[in-house]
């Protein structure tokens, strides 16, 4: 690259008086003054949430109303800040979902620890834990900031399912194919 010497021009008289620059600045600020405002007035106006957004982690049910989580505890082990605490529980064999071996007895996510990394969602073999659109969690006490199982299902609701893995397993069993 060749070196291009730039001529450093001395300031003109007009520039040294500051006046033209100040007038140009006043023109710019006036344009901003009359322009529509940029602010999103938050509690009334909400930002558009893009797909793939990592909000508050929630537990979801499949379209049949069955809780998807089988308390494998992978999320608990992968969680970097150790925000998840799962107490595994059995499912009664005569229950409609008896073919699913386990379900969580209690599932707690401490939102004061959660870092919204989404690793729990990534690791879940059942697509049971999903980071959804809610981005604002508030509470007056530390206890309020720990989401228990009921609260997690309330936040999560039902999401569409394309696998119905456990239904397939049950049909296969009924047709005598134990190992599908």
């Amino acid at each position, binding site marked *: 690259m060749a070196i291009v010497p730039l001529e450093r021009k001395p300031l003109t008289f007009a520039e040294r008086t500051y006046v033209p620059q*100040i007038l140009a600045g*006043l023109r*710019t*600020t*006036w344009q901003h*003054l009359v*322009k529509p*405002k940029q*602010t999103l*007035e938050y509690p009334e106006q909400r930002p558009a949430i893009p797909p793939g957004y990592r909000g508050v982690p929630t537990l979801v049910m499949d379209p049949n109303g069955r809780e998807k989580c089988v308390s494998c505890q992978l999320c608990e082990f992968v969680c970097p800040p150790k925000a998840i605490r799962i107490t595994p529980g059995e499912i009664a064999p005569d229950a409609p979902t008896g073919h699913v071996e386990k379900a969580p007895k209690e599932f707690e996510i401490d939102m004061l620890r959660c870092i919204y990394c989404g690793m729990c969602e990534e690791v879940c073999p059942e697509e049971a834990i999903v980071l959804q659109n809610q981005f604002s969690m508030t509470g007056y006490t530390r206890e309020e900031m720990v989401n228990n199982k009921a609260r997690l299902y309330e936040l999560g609701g039902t999401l569409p399912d394309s696998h119905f893995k456990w239904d397939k397993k049950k049909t296969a069993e009924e047709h005598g194919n134990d190992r599908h």
Partner: protein
Amino acid sequence: MIDFYLSLHPVVQGVLKGLAVILVIFPIGGACSMAERKVSAWIQGRPGPNRAIVPWVAWIPILGPFLQRLGIFHVMADGGKMLFKEDALPGHVNKFYFVLAPIVAMIPALTTVVAVPFGAYLDTAGQVIPLALANVDIGMLAVFAVSSMGVYSLILAGWASNSKYPFLGGVRASAQLISYELSMTLSVMPVFLWVNAPGREATLGLARVVEFQSGSWAGFTSASWGGVWFIFIMPVSAFVFITALFAETNRQPFDMPESEADLVGGFHTEYGAFKWGLFFVAEYSAMLIGSGVFTLLFLGGWNPLPWVPLADLVGWLTHLSPVLGHPIVVGLLSIGIFLGKVLALIFFFMWVRWTVPRFRYDQVMEIGWKKLLPLAIANLLAYAIGIAFLERG
């Protein structure tokens, strides 16, 4: 009512008039602090303070939300907070002077208004009588003399705070204010040279300056000069005056005494609560008075337009309805015109504040001494020679 007022002792009358004027200036000062926040917000693309509201105002259908958007109640909330919060007095300060400083700031700011006429009415003979607390002949001199006392409050505050940043702020304030007072005074001299024609009673009164700008259009003759505002006859004077006014009221780009980026808060670093509030009301009052003086000197005072003096306007209005010619209506109209111009100037102050960054301190000194002062002197000489030729010819 008016007879009862006129039967009072002149001193009581004066006190009542003074209180009335202060009662107007104080809320305008408070509203200016809100306007400052709103203008800054708009310039930065924000809506500005718009949340606080009193419930019984919220019930008013359209007006309530409008006032809320305007942030009117934030002024009251801020004022109330300032009154009721703890007024801390740091242990290391010189208590007497520390408390004295905000008081010294308020006194000149509210005293200068005495010599500033703010409106006019027409008596039965059709003469324009200016409205002022004291329409004295030394008007301009009184304003300069008293307003320059304001610097003592900054020096006192900086010194009494007994800490380094306020001290630096106080030192800067004193140097800056004294430097710019020179060019300010020199810049208004041509106006008074023009006003004080030989053979007339000499005056430095501000009402007389406005009277000089109240001519009507008289064709392309020299008589038409009377209707032109001084900003058009003496643009350089007006420019020097307003620049010096920015420096005198510590406004951006000259807010060296405060310069929160390098001096924390400058002279008021150690102040809080109501004492701090007093400094700010004083600053806004000084701005108001300064804008008022600029309006009187260069923008035709209470005359609505160049070549349209107040007397002509009132003449047209009386044709519409004789009620409009009543002295009280005319007085209110003239005060309205005057205040409108003053508030427009205040907006200009804010607009500049949110446009121009602060000068470096050496630049402030250089502009003051090496540019503005020679310009003011050259301007004065040019007009002195010009006026001498005009009056001889």
